[in-house]
Structure formats: C-alpha cells, structure tokens
C-alpha cells in the first residue's frame, strides 16, 4: 500500500494530515509493519505542548519500544482513546482508525519541511 496522497511524512515514519491549523498524527504502514504487533501506545495528555521533533508519545510492540516525535510544533488537543483497548488498530489501519493525536499546529509552515508521499516512499526504499 502506497503512502496516501493527502499526507505529509517525517523520516521517523510519522504522518501528518493537516487541515487548516489542525493536524492529525499517526505512524506509517511501513513503521507499523516494521514494529510488528503493537501492544501499547503511550499517548500524552491533551494540552501537552511540543516543539517539532520533540518526543510526544511512545509505542510498544512485541519487538521494541519506540518514540513518536512531533512532526510539527503545537499543542495536543485530542488523542485516540480507542488505542488503549485496541492498539492493534495501528497495525490494521495506520492511516485511519489507528490515528494517534490531534494537534493544534503553531505554525502550519513547519509542515513544509516534511516529506511528500513520493519523497517518503523514496526514503523507505533507500533502506533507512
């Protein structure tokens, strides 16, 4: 499955869906596949502020625990409460019901530093 066209990506395999100043964040299909079965997602409390690239959440799979970074600076307004009981949504639907956080984006121009779907595909094919 290719990277959805309406998303922006980080090299650390997060995606961002930006609508005005509201951004939704999750991890990519590639990341979910690499992690294997996700067993726990540690999400921040709404209201948490983060700068671009700060650690915002962490995700635990049967293989490893990994950090999730803020793709852009902003304040968390909402998190996906479904992941507490059904973390497997990250594996089954990473770009949909496996979303993680909604962020009030401080400066939407931050997103210009992110990768396009094509650039992201190239990044994962380069083996990094």
């Amino acid at each position, binding site marked *: 499955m290719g990277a959805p066209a309406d998303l922006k990506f980080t090299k650390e395999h997060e995606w961002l869906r930006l609508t005005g100043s509201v951004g939704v964040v999750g991890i990519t299909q590639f990341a979910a596949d*690499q992690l294997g*079965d996700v*067993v*726990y997602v540690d999400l921040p409390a709404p209201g948490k502020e983060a700068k671009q690239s700060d650690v915002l959440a962490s995700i*635990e799979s*049967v*293989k*490893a625990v990994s950090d999730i970074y803020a793709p852009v600076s902003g304040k968390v307004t909402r998190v996906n409460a479904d992941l507490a009981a059904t*973390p*497997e949504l990250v594996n089954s639907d990473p770009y949909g019901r496996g979303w993680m956080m909604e962020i009030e984006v401080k400066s939407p121009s931050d997103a210009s530093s992110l990768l396009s779907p094509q650039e992201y595909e190239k990044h994962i094919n380069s083996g990094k």
Partner: protein
Amino acid sequence: MSRLFDTAVSSGIPALPAHARRAAPLALDALPENDLVRHHVNLSRKNLCVDSSFYPLGSCTMKYSPKAGEAVASEPGFLQAHPWQPDSEVQGVLQALGELQQDLAAVTGMEAVCLYPAAGAHGELCALKTARQYFRLRGDTDRTEVLVPENAHGTNPASAAMSGLTVVVVKMDATGRVDLADLRQKVSNRTAVLMLTNPNTLGLFETCIEDVARAVHDAGGLLYYDGANLNAILGRVRPGDMGFDMVHVNLHKTFSIPHGGGGPGAGPIGVKSHLAPYLPGPFLKREEGAWGWAEADRRSIGRYHGAFGNFLNLLKAWVYLRLLGDEGIRRVSLGAVLNANYLQEKLRPMFPIPYGHGRCMHEFVASAIALKDKFGVSAMDVAKRILDEGLYAPTVYFPLLVREALMIEPTETERRETLDRFVELMQTILREAETNPQRLHDAPIRTPVRRVDDVRAARHPILK
C-alpha cells in the same frame, strides 16, 4: 508350594528403633520418592540448555560451563562458608576472591575490581553511580549526559536513566561503527560517560576506538566498556589499553559460569585507579599474608549487594581462569572469532549479512529479509523451526537496525561438526521456506510448549 509361604520367615534385620520412628505419618500428600524424582527429571528434560544442545544465542555468549567449576563450588569449605564468619576461618574464600579481582583487572586492563554486582545491568548501574560520585566530589556537577550508540544494548540507556542521567544517542556510520563526526558534535562539558560495547552489537570491532576515547576524554568525560562482547578480544587487547576508564564483565558470558538456571549471575566492574575510591565497599585487603575486609570511606557510593556478591559463582569464574591460564585465555577469543567467521562464510550464500563485508569478531548479524520478501517467512519463523531440531535459536530482531535480524554467536566451545550440522539445518529451512512455508509458520511442533501468543500476553496480561 503353598506351604513355602506359610512359614514365617525372619531375616533378622532389625527395624529402626522406636525413638527414630514417627508415631504418625506426616500430614503431607503421600507420593513415592520415585514419582517425585520422575517429575523433576521430566521437567528438566523439557529444558533446552547448553548441556543438551548448540545454543548460538547472539550477544549472550552461551559457552559451555565446565563442570570443574561446579566440583570446586561443591567443596564443603566453600559451599558452607558463611558471610559473617571470622576472616581467619575463611582465608581460602577470601584468597579466591582476591585472586579473581587480580585476574579480572589483568584481563581488562583495569586497576581496581569490585565483585559485588549481581549481573551486567547491576554492574552498569554501579559504575554509573561511581562515575557520578567521581564528578560530584570534583564539583563537576553539570555532567548529566550519557552517550550511547544507536546499536547499544538496551541496558545501557536503561542504566543511565536509572542513575538519573540523560541519554544522548550517537549515530552509527555506514560501516556499522560509531560515527565519529556525530560523536564529536555531541560530546560536551555535559558529557559524563560514553558507554560502548567493543566489538559492538554487529560483531564489529570499533577500529576508531582511540579517536573515540580521545574525543570523550578531551571533553572531560569517562569511557565505559560494556563487557557483553569481551569474549571476542580476551587476551588480545584490553579495554584499559583502548582508553576505557571503567568496565563491567559478565561472568555468565565470557567467564563461563552458568546462565540463569545455575544460579544468579555476576557482573563485576573494574575501574582505573582515579575511580577506585568511589566503588562500593567493603574492600578486600591483604596484610602480612592474611586476607580481610576494610570498610570504605565516605567517598564510596556504599554497599550494592548483601554480603560479598554471589560467591559460589565468583568462585567458578576463578576456577575457569585458573584452568585456562594465560595461553588458554588467548585461545578462548581465537576460537570464538574463528567459529563465528566459519559460520558467517558458510551462511553468506544463504542470507544477506548487511554489515558483513569483512571479517566479523565473535558474532555476526544475518538477515531473513529475503525470505520475508519472497516467501513471507520471518526471522521468528526461522528461529522457531530451529527449536524443533532440539537446538536453541539465534537472537532475533536485535540489533533493530538490521531488519529480520538473526544474531549468531557460536562461541569457542563448539566443534566444527556441530557448526556444520547447524549449517545443514539452515539449508533445510531455506528449502522449506520455498516449498512448505506453512511448516515454518507452524513451528515449533515438537517442543513441550508450542508458539506462545506473545501479542495477546502483552495486550492482555494476567498479572494476578
């Protein structure tokens, strides 16, 4: 015939005297002794261990534990010694500990050794606390960062966090070694310690170790040697000579004491003399030929273990070193590196070895990525299939930077025929991946416990 049985026969053997007999049976469920023995023997047969099979678990150095160590540790004088006995009654015990300290200092190039830590991670904690104390008493209190390479063992960042220090990750270069440019950018007057495993978790020697050491020392930091992979260089090159200020050694890896089931582990630490006063006490001393203990002064970080460490295990390591001697110790690393390279070359046509362009040290990391892409067979499937043949599996999915990683460490205690059988098994598994991948997804089918649902266990743990 029947008359034969009618005769009361007496053998004349006396019964136990009345005072030695129970008036009534014990209020326990009655079970014959043989049933109890069978229960435990059958349980033990369900176990895979180094005494039953090849155990190429990477980064764990599952070498054979010589039985001579067990024999010495079973001597009543050692077995029944009590930690609080007067020193004069346990001179042999103290001598063994003292000589082990000297031996470990000699093979690591350190100047003081503390035998107390009960495991490698405990050693790391102990050493980082020692480093903090060293800086604190110098008034150098801003050093709060621990540098760890991205392929470090998970214990390194965990120990740093447990010590109240902040972890800074150092990148790797394209060859799989510390990226010097990245390191130079990240060292600063906040650097307390760089923790490094050498050879690293990819089985590669950090060839720029002297430059790494210089960069850290020039910034005023200390170098910590994670001894997990010491087996590769034992008797060839010493951490102390590479510039390390502190080390831990895993006696249950390099020094052959049993892992786990044989009792607790042991992870002594060694330091250069400038760090010695801060180590946990009490310290062993020898005055006029007699061994004894001296309490540490206020510079010490205090006690880190009840009594004096896991003594019987320490003793087995002392036996191991004294059985080998100087020449034998050199042959350990020679054999470990030779066996790993033999297996690497045999497996090279079968599996990609992403960082295996040259010779490896004591282990190497192959990848099952081609099997995964072509046949949907994962590193986990390969590992589980190996269990079906009564062998233990390599480490899987570590280090994380190799996808579908199979980390293989044969150790020096295996002969060539054993390695060849392992190679044949891997060939069989490759054929099965192509012709019958379901067999690999189903594996193991012959073990007492089949594949555990680790996902469900992690998602819905039963904690009570």
